[in-house]
């Protein structure tokens, strides 16, 4: 089979089998819909509740994208600072790690209390904390991965620090940064949802996490599943967009995205 067809057909077949199995399970075991709704019922609910869920999705998406943007700007800047000053890196990197390994559900309540009137900001900060580390770590690694001989060549031609960064370290780091970005995209979404879970429902402009919580309280399982489905689709879409972006930016030279040999 053609590799390209396989790439689309194979996961599609798995998905189809999964949905069929799910449907069969619900029918044969006569599962009540408040335990496990069948796929048809979920699709129906998604169609009916879609418009109302979409508003919440936009809220979640806004937090996610803002957090990702902040992670790119602050994470990238921090990584560049690290390469310019070893002392700075030594003194700050451990704290970046601490922030990374502390579970976000444990920090989120504090942040939400400290920023109590600014819900959007508090959720954004939580999502940012989850998302920024892969960008810092990967970009730092990339900035320090410049070919040793190229570094010597730049020195030989009297390159300034700025030139070394601009023409050597940044281009070297780009593929690493993009790897970090793809990981962070998914993490930002997770961060945004988890933070909202911790914050609890309430307020008007709430995101998908609040819809999921509500639906759970009211045992509206079909609606809960519909929201979950929407969330998963969003995660996949973010990953796809970022992958496409990587492809665009480095496909002309980097091994990881080169087309198969002709």
């Amino acid at each position, binding site marked *: 089979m053609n590799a390209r067809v396989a790439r689309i057909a194979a996961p599609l077949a798995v998905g189809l089998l999964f949905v069929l199995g799910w449907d069969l399970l619900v029918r044969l075991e006569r599962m009540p819909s408040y335990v496990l709704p069948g796929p048809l019922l979920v699709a129906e609910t998604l169609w009916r509740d879609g418009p109302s869920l979409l508003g919440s999705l936009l809220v979640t998406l806004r937090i996610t994208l803002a957090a990702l943007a902040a992670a790119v700007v602050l994470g990238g800047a921090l990584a560049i600072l690290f390469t310019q000053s070893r002392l700075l890196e030594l003194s700050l990197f451990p704290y970046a790690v601490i922030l990374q390994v502390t579970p976000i559900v444990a920090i989120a309540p504090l942040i939400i209390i400290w920023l109590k009137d600014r819900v959007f900001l508090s959720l954004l900060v939580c999502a940012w904390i989850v998302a920024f580390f892969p960008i810092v770590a990967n970009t730092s690694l990339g900035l320090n991965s410049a070919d040793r001989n190229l570094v010597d060549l730049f020195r*030989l031609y009297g390159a300034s620090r700025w030139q070394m960064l601009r023409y*050597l370290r940044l281009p070297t780091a*780009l593929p690493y940064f993009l790897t970090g970005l793809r990981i962070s995209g998914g993490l930002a979404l997770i961060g945004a949802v988890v933070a909202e879970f911790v914050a609890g429902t309430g307020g008007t402009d709430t995101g998908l996490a609040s819809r999921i919580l509500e639906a759970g309280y009211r045992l509206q399982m079909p609606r809960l599943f519909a929201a979950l489905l929407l969330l998963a689709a969003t995660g996949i879409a973010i990953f796809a967009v970022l992958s496409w972006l990587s492809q665009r930016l480095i496909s002309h030279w980097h091994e990881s995205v080169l087309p198969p040999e002709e």
Partner: protein
Amino acid sequence: MAGGRGDAPIIALDGVGKRFRSGVEALAGIDLAIPAGGFVSLLGPSGCGKSTLLRIIAGLIPPTSGRLVRGASDLSGRLGFVFQEATLMPWATVWQNVYLPLRLAGKRRDAVAARIAETLASLGLAGFEQAYPRELSGGMRMRVSIARALVTEPLLLLLDEPFAALDEFTRFRLNEDLLRLWQRHHWTVVFVTHSVFESVFLSSRILVMTPRPGRILADLPIDLPYPRDGALRTAPHYTEQCRRISGLLSEAMA
């Protein structure tokens, strides 16, 4: 003209030694003068410190003893270095790679476009300006690397086994190209190799080095007249020279 011993040195080493922090003594007591306009080969077994010596000459690492004496001409920005691997920037086109040293010197694109075009043409790279390194063969990548070293019109060109990874056919052709360019432009060349045949074919002088710690075992002028071309490779006086130097090298290893 071709680097007889009387020429003023462009750079000289005075009792240079190098001991790395790891404790490895790579070089010991190297005295040598590189005559302006000469084509000098450093010939020695693997690990004898040839690359280290070249990096000291380039000023990339300091010697731990002795000193580097610069000649009258100012070499800053006029030094070309070619590494064993092509060492190109994979994200940049051939043109951008060759433009790099000029860009670092603050030269504008349009001011140097003609010079870059000429350099690329002289190495047979015309038409490949927009290609990326991965689209080139190993030999072509090496040519780009040489073009990048030549585009600054270097006074001193340092080459570290530039053709070691190439097949013999390509290597011969690049040898001849290099000689032709050297004769046209009157640079000084220091060429590291462990091929006796290559060094005899190219050099006006060969420095044979001992195993680690590297010392200069012999300093041999090669009095085959330039221009040299492919026909020389089969000439009896060429093979005679090669035999003599091979003999010296195995003596050095003993």
